[in-house]
């Protein structure tokens, strides 16, 4: 850990980490409101297509697995940076970002397929609340993927020493959070119809 940055604070926690946890607390309320709205409007659509007609559980199970595995890769990437193992850091940062991009690919495919089935933002309440909720989650994955790619470029140029591990750790906090939110979305929207 970066002792220069930690020994001065009142709690001993790095300021960046504490600030980021606070931000994640705020994000919880953000997604909580989006998910609650989806739940409130469940079954309130007046016209189709309805969720059970078009949600593709096997396909989304695969994309969920992809996102979960990216969290695993994130842990290995952080370990690589902390131990100064540049090769491990590079491989696993690339894997994490790649799996994130794959998840986004699945989501793009899913959105297109729904559109072809006649579901848009303005078709019914299911369309409105589904696209806004999963769309905001997807936007978070895009931000995370760009963030990881920037870290990967830094690692490539040798600018990610073990003393910089906090940067990767904070990115990891964000990534795991976005992942956990997806587990909630997958359970509440896809599995519990």
């Amino acid at each position, binding site marked *: 850990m970066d002792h220069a940055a930690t020994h001065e604070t009142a709690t001993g926690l790095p300021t960046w980490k504490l*600030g980021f946890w606070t931000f994640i607390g*705020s*994000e919880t309320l953000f997604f*909580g*409101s989006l998910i609650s*709205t989806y739940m409130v409007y469940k079954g*309130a659509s*007046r016209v189709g297509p309805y969720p059970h007609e078009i949600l593709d559980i096997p396909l989304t199970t695969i994309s969920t697995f992809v996102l979960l595995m990216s969290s695993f890769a994130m842990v290995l990437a952080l370990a690589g940076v902390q131990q100064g193992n540049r090769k491990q850091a590079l491989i696993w940062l690339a894997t994490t970002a790649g799996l994130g991009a794959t998840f986004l690919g699945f989501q793009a495919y899913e959105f297109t397929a729904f559109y072809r089935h006649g579901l848009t933002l303005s078709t019914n309440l299911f369309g*409105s*609340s589904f696209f806004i909720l999963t769309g905001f989650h997807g936007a978070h994955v895009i931000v995370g993927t760009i963030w990881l790619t920037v870290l990967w470029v830094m690692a490539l140029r040798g600018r990610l020493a073990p003393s910089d591990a906090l940067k990767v750790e904070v990115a990891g906090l964000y990534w795991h959070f976005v992942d956990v939110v997806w587990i909630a979305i997958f359970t509440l929207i896809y599995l519990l119809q």
Partner: protein
Amino acid sequence: MATAETTALRTAPAYGGGIWSWITTVDHKRIGILYGATALFFLLVGGLEALLIRLQLAVPDADLIGPELYNQLFTMHGTTMVFLVGMPIAVAFFNYIVPLQIGARDVAFPRLNALSYWIFLFGALLMNVSFLFGAAPNAGWFGYAPLTSDQYSPGLNVDFWVLGLQVLGVASIMGGVNFITTIINLRAPGMRMMRLPLFTWMALLTSFLLITALPVFAVALFFLTFDRFWGTLFFVPSAGGDPILWQHLFWLFGHPEVYILILPAFGIISDVLPAFTRKPLFGYAIMVYSGILIAFIGWGVWAHHMFATGLGPIADSFFAAATMIIAIPTGVKIFNWLATMWGGSMRFDTPLLFCIALVGMFTIGGISGVHHAAAPANLQQTDTYYVVAHFHYVLVGGLIMGIFAGLYYWLPKVTGRMLDERLGKWHFWLTVIGANLTFFPMHFAGLLGMPRRIFTYSSELNLGGINMVISIGGFIMAIGTLIFVYNLWRSIRHGAVAGDNPWNAHTLEWATTSPPAEYNFGRIPEVRSREPMWDYPDEMIAQAQYVPERPVHMPSPSFWPIFTAIGITLTCALFLTEIWWTPLLGLLWTAVGVISWSFEPPER
């Protein structure tokens, strides 16, 4: 006097001058001044809107202002006073005072702090630029669905409202994250949580409310934005959408917002009262715990704003009881302030007078609040001037009195010069008399059937006399405020030099010079009690005013916060073009800002 002047101005901070140094500043004190100046400007704007409303309502059947402009005025008066005055002026105090009170050299994230300010400023401008289009927001500060839908509110008015608030919300969330981290992590050695000055405690609780309440509002605003621009159906009843959902989301934010506005004022007077009564705050620990309880229970009472929608007896009973329970920790605070004054050797300077006014007037507002909490009485009072009376007693009688107490108390630290006491007393008496003359008769007008948000009333209601008194009261308050503005201007130019601790106060900020050095404390002091400046002032002053041999490492000024703030504001403002890809330009601008920012070295 001459020697006092040279001593005070000797240690004036060595800032670079010029407008560029303000644009790129990341110094919490300068950002605090920017926040304060902007909020005071909007206090005058919001006040002017209120005066126009009162001119229109002074006599029955008046046609000075038509209903369309009237709708814009009451909407912008509410929105301005809540989002552009109440919140930012509290944040101005957080910025200037909190790092000094906890013995820190700056906030945890100085550049993020600058970003918050610029986003706030641009969001405020975006909202107010609507007046130039003749299309200021006109659907009430609460923006109830489905009135805000494209169908019932075509035109730009509600667009400006929803987009401006979205921008402002971003600033508040970032500010909340920054101050939680600052207060928890940057305390000086020995500054335990239970030694924090009450103002810093209330800043911490307010920050928690900001980061939890604002995201809920952001979601509600996103729904409305998408409803208006891209045809989603969240609040469209014909498609099954529920307008009551807006009310739930709005008040889930809106009630914690009430405590976001009042807790800082509670914090201010809890620090001012001990200085002017020469007694430690009565029941420090209980004051902290009751603040925590208020913030916590404040999250479980939102539906008392919605009794009239017919929630059913069980929900009504729950929210009525929860609301009444909040009166208990609030009452504890009132009694502890009284007990702090009891037997103290009081010095009736302007800050103390405003504190006393807060205790009295907030209690009146608190009592009418309990009236609203009773659901059956609420049905009688809702949407009448009784409600207007209530929230002006808690906001003007609570928030504004606390803010003025804080300004008279802390401005000598900021400017190094005192405000004039004689003008201060004129300001105080005109404000208190004006406020009570304005807001107390509103109780009667409301119970006699005067509705809110209607641009005129019939002479047959027999409310002409009451309304004339209310309007006269409003103008008396306005004169008081102008006297304050003059006093402030005069104090900056000719005020008596304040010295480091003009009130002989007890908390750490008074150990620094007035104004403090750029790095605040030459050496970070080690604190051993709650009242360091009473218990061992010489030691604290020696530490704080120690002149370091080598330059202190401070965060570098940065251009990227204002650059990024422009991007975020553009992203929202470009929605107004109704061309779908234009907001992406704003996002691109923001991305350039964020990436340049993250590769800029943070320290010089």
